[in-house]
């Protein structure tokens, strides 16, 4: 790689391993420790190795694991939300059904009440009509009876009137009046 080839020409001094501690004591007189290129090769090689291992572990094991958990969590949450929504819809439907049931029952009871009322009214009407008819019959009967009685009484009255008129005429004139005359007088009187 590019970085490694950079370090290659510098890794020539071999006495560095023993010399590094000595330069450290003399307050770093030999340049920055980072520019001691004899250590670059080992660091770069180890870094590449470590990075490769770390990358492989992360890319193959840890990242898929975390992503699976995150996906699983998202799926769990979304299914839970879906479920809650479905339950909500179900509950709404149930509430709707219950309302409809109540409405139906109310309508039914209302119909039943109306029915009962109508039946009662009809029965009442029927009975009333029957009673009325009976009463009317009785009334008519009574009226006919009264009429016959009155007629009888009326005939009696005319008889009595004729008799009285006869007796009055007899008393006044001394002679008995004829029945036809009386009748004529009577009817004339009745016509007025």
């Amino acid at each position, binding site marked *: 790689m590019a970085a490694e080839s950079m370090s290659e020409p510098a890794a020539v001094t071999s006495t560095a391993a023993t010399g590094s501690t000595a330069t450290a004591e003399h307050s*770093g007189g030999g*340049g*920055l420790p980072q*520019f001691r290129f004899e250590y670059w090769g080992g660091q770069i090689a180890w870094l590449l190795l470590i990075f490769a291992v770390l990358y492989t572990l992360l890319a193959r094991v840890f990242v898929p694991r975390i992503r699976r958990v995150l996906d699983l969590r998202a799926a769990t949450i979304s299914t839970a939300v879906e479920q809650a929504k479905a339950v909500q819809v179900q509950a709404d439907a149930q509430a709707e059904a219950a309302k409809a049931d109540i409405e139906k029952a109310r309508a039914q009871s209302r119909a039943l009440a109306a029915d009962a009322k109508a039946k009662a009214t009809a029965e009442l009407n029927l009975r009333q009509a029957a009673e009325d008819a009976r009463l009317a019959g009785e009334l008519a009967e009574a009226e006919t009876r009264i009429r016959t009685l009155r007629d009888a009484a009326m005939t009696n009255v005319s008889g009595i009137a004729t008799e009285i008129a006869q007796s009055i005429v007899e008393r006044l004139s001394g002679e008995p009046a004829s029945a036809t005359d009386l009748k004529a007088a009577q009817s004339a009187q009745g016509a007025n």
Partner: protein
Amino acid sequence: MDPAAAKYIGAGLATLGMIGAGIGVGTIFGNFLSGATRNPSAAGGQFTNLILGAALTEALGILAFVLGLVILFS
């Protein structure tokens, strides 16, 4: 002139490059703050851009700083 003195002066002069980076980073954060106080809701989304700009600006100052250290410890 004493070569050691010249080295120290040179190192000090090299680190002067950090002045520019300091001004630049200050401008970035100052402008970010003045923008963020005007529209705080948009500030969170610009955090990456803020850090990016600051890092790119700071790199030049770091360049001067490293150069100064290299001269100082050469």
